[in-house]
């Protein structure tokens, strides 16, 4: 199952208002639980499953599952999410061994570089589109990320 199929599945579940779903197919296992106020959770396992999906397991209160790839504001908690514009590999620093661009707790300004996402030797410097404090980094250095995947949560000031 790829990211697109997973997204379609989630959309289908929302459309049909199905709150719990479990699927086992070969070595892939998917369990989705949605609804409020219970935090939605997607648990996926399997050797070939894109690790990129793990972000969705970050509990986001009162937000429907599909918001993981749509909304910019994270509902009630008021955090701003910075997302990846491309599929690629996430780098927290400009070169291996260099200090990271930012870390949790840092104050960032509008346009400040937060990280690099690389695909096909194309380096995409991701800039902050708000000024504020880095509250959360969703992705680890060297990890693959999907299009639209949240990278940072920022408390705008």
């Amino acid at each position, binding site marked *: 199952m790829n990211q697109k199929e997973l997204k379609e599945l989630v959309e289908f579940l929302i459309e049909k208002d199905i709150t719990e779903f479990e699927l086992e197919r070969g070595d892939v296992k998917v369990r989705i639980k949605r609804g409020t106020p219970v935090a939605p959770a997607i648990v996926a396992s399997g*050797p*070939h499953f894109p690790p990129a999906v793990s972000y969705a397991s970050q509990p986001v209160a009162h937000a429907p599952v599909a918001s993981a790839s749509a909304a910019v504001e994270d509902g009630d908690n008021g955090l701003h999410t910075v*997302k*990846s*514009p*491309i*599929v*690629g*590999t996430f780098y927290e620093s*400009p*070169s*291996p*061994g*260099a200090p990271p661009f930012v870390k949790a707790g840092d104050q960032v300004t509008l346009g400040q570089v937060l990280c690099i996402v*690389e*695909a*096909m*030797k*194309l*380096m*995409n*410097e991701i*800039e902050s*589109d708000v000024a504020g404090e880095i509250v959360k980094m969703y992705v680890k250095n*060297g990890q*693959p990320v999907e*299009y*639209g995947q949240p990278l940072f949560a920022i408390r705008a000031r």
Partner: protein
Amino acid sequence: MTPHTPSSRNTPGSPERSGSAIPAPGEPTDGKLGRVIRVLSANPLVELSGTKIAEELGTSRSEVWRLVEQLRELGVEIAGHQSIGYRLESVPDLLLPEILGPLVSGTIFDRNIHHFFRISSTNVAAMAAAAQGEPEGSVFLAEEQTSGKGRGGHAWASDASAGIYCSAILRPALAPADVLMISLAAGLAVSAAVEQVTGLQPDLRWPNDVLLGDRKFCGVLTELNAEVTRVRYAVVGIGINVNQSRFPDELRELATSLHLETGRPWSRVELTAALLKSLDCEYRALVTDASAARQSVFRRFEQRSSFVRGARVHVEEDGGYDGVTEGLDERGFLRVRTGSGMRTVLSGGVRKP
């Protein structure tokens, strides 16, 4: 010839001159230098008087004298002197806009060619200029880079006037996913230009290293500034080893140049012109019809690359793994079959073990 040493050929009685012929790093090349060459090359058979050149440039005779001396220090062969006039012995292989511009007219790259004798990195300069609104098609060329950039913090050895160090600004109205095609297309453009000029048929190592045998002579590093749905600008940086006659020990097994492969020097001007024309073609195709261009890029990449199918490779990313390549997926990523199933290479760093 060592263009770095400050003037050692100061003739007695000549006006005072300070410092090196080479401007400080990052300082754009004085456009008058190229214009002197342009005027001289338009009159190849006669000694052209300093007064005549000064008129053409709208400057003074002493300024012309200073410019000629500076050009000589940079290795340009100019015969004559102030009293009898000047004549160009041969058109220099410098990537000056006045020389390169006419060769790429009609492409998107013919308007804003920025030349530097020495710069930290053409990509850094182009990205900074793009952030300040520099238009699409602007090209940054340097005779020498003091900190040329490669992938993942690697340096790109950039000796003076031996290679081509070129960065172009693009502002494509494309989704970020389609912009990835530029990365593959840039390698194809280099490959086509080199074949056209030298007759060599380079190999392509996904995504865009260009090789002769198993040694690399060209690398591409693209930098992107994008929002989730929109690309603000991209800078395609291309480094080509042209006339290097040797490499340091640590690079000898990995790197080569066109000179080393063929035993003769090549015109960087001609190669750069062929490259920019080729890149112009690829880019126009991509922004005109992204999906048709994508198919064309995939097809040509498969034809030209020994890495894309059936090659045993080591992949550096994602913890590192080995496998056998199985073509490109619909986005252009390299598929590699491993002992534990199919994997997709996202960033680069593929090599034959």
